[in-house]
């Protein structure tokens, strides 16, 4: 990540809810990803100056916007933060042009009109200038909201669930536009979303939030393949999450006992592990390989045998539920594969298959404390 453009430490209390988090964002697109009620919108409001946190410090491009210890709290009017709330909050009594022009006050008329015309063209809103928001489609409304925020030359752009009101096709199209914004504007963009695919299609950096805290902050690959704990693994839709115990270390490998099976995983460099320690392990269902007839699995680590007991089909392919054969037990493993692979392998319900997991794809996570584990 480049030098952080935004540094935020925010602590705030509401009845029945505590927000306490820190994160950094560069001149890139970062996603605040988490379920509803995680505190994502509150965080955006605190950055925009629309909520005064009880404690904290927010620095944007070297300027202190908020600092509870020195009593600095710039009003939203002076923060130059572009804010696009959920549902866009277009001014219903104004035309498209009036909406876009709202942030341009105190400029000569000619200059204003030039800027509006340029922004209308940039956002592809030609011909809609005199329409009212309720006469626009969802996608057009979003463009107007972006235009209205961008015309005031913000130093950061905050987007709250920008695609939640749009259908799938439009979502993809607008998502690509939004993804290009940081490069085009040279400003950081923070996108709040509860949708995993939005977060991972768009964001270079993902900040995982839950119950007012940041659980993990990193590149999308880190978060997607190396979740910090069970909760993050669940949030990034990791299907195979298991309890295991560390048996021994062999070079750069960790030997694990998973319900009587010995598995090998690459030793994670930053984790302190000891033999006997209980851990959580996980593997993405796309990373589990099914043996083809021509493959030789002998000598491979992490070979598992089982029977397909359920198949679920989605637009991308198949997700198989496999019950492991030995030692006997109810252990299940989920395997996801593309349609063509499914057909080529001649798979079907109740077929016995052999699978293998590469040690680098098996990820070890420290176990959460029992209390938060129970409630998750």
């Amino acid at each position, binding site marked *: 990540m480049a030098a952080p453009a935004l540094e935020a430490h925010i602590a705030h209390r509401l009845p029945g809810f505590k927000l306490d988090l820190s994160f950094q964002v560069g001149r890139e697109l970062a996603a605040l990803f988490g379920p509803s009620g995680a505190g994502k919108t509150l965080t955006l409001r605190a950055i*925009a100056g*629309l909520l005064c946190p009880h404690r904290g410090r927010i620095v944007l491009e070297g300027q202190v916007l908020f600092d509870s210890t020195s009593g600095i709290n710039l009003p939203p*009017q002076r923060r130059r933060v572009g*804010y696009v709330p959920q549902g866009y909050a277009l*001014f*219903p009594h104004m035309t498209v042009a009036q909406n876009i022009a*709202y*942030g341009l006050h105190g400029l000569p008329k000619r200059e204003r009109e030039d800027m509006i015309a340029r922004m209308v063209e940039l956002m592809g809103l030609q011909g809609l200038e005199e329409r009212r928001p*309720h006469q626009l489609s969802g996608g057009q409304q979003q463009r107007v909201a972006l235009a209205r*925020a961008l015309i005031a030359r913000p130093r950061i752009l905050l987007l709250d669930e920008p695609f939640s009101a749009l259908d799938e096709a439009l979502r993809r199209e607008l998502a690509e536009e939004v993804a290009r914004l940081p490069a085009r504007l040279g400003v950081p963009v923070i996108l709040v979303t509860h949708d995993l695919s939005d977060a991972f299609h768009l964001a270079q950096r993902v900040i995982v939030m839950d119950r007012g805290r940041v659980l993990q902050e990193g590149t999308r690959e880190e978060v997607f393949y190396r979740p910090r704990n069970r909760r993050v693994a669940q949030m990034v839709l990791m299907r195979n999450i298991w309890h295991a115990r560390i048996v021994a270390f062999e070079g750069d490998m960790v030997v694990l006992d998973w319900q009587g099976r010995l598995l090998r995983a690459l030793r994670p460099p930053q984790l302190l592990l000891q033999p006997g320690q209980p851990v959580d392990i996980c593997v993405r269902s796309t990373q589990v390989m099914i043996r083809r007839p021509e493959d030789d699995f002998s000598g491979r680590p992490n070979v598992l045998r089982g029977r397909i007991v359920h198949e679920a089909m989605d637009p991308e392919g198949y997700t198989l539920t496999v019950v492991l054969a030995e030692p006997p037990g109810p252990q299940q493993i989920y395997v996801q594969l593309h349609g063509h692979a499914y057909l080529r392998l001649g798979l079907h319900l109740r077929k016995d298959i052999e699978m293998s997991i590469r040690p680098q794809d098996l990820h070890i996570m420290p176990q959460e404390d029992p209390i938060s584990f129970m409630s998750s």
Partner: protein
Amino acid sequence: MAIYPDDVRITLQVATLATLICLVVGGPLAWVLARYSFPGRGLLSLLVTAPLALPPTVVGYYLLRGLGHGSPLGRLLDRIGLELVFTWQGAVVAAAVLAAPLFIIPAQAGFAGVDQELERVAATLGRSRLSIFLTITLPIAARNLGAGVVLAFAKAVGEFGATVMVAGAIPGRTRTMAVSVYDAIQAGDLGRANATALALLGISLASLSIFAALTTFLRR
């Protein structure tokens, strides 16, 4: 005998001033009730809307007791030289109190109906709080405020019970049209009753048409 011009003048003067008072006092009250929660909010809301449910003569009776020479407030008013009992100014107060809920209820709904996210966005776009109120909040709530003004005016024009209690029916000084209709019947002056009633009906219907236009035809 036809309509008394004095009755019409007093009626319009009283109703206009009473509506203005509703606007000036009731506007901020409606805003506070719509936007803030504080201890006593429920009681304030009840107090403001109570005249809608109470018999007007009862409201008038308590106004008379509360504003008369025997009361602390009455003595205070005496000192600044404002006489409310049996004066047209008293009629204004009576009409304003009775008309206030009809302005405040729609006004409160109007302010509450303005999505505060709009005001938040406006603030991030650099506009001052006053500017946001004038360009966002007020225009969006305007239809409700307008409807409230018309309803309050119509009520103030026709107010009878409390007005008679506080201001009496002194021809040329405190007698409004609504009181005059009753007065004319008592005096057996059917011509005046007829003419005044018709004129009142005209004013009320005109007000209601404006109200209907505000609530239906001007919807965007």
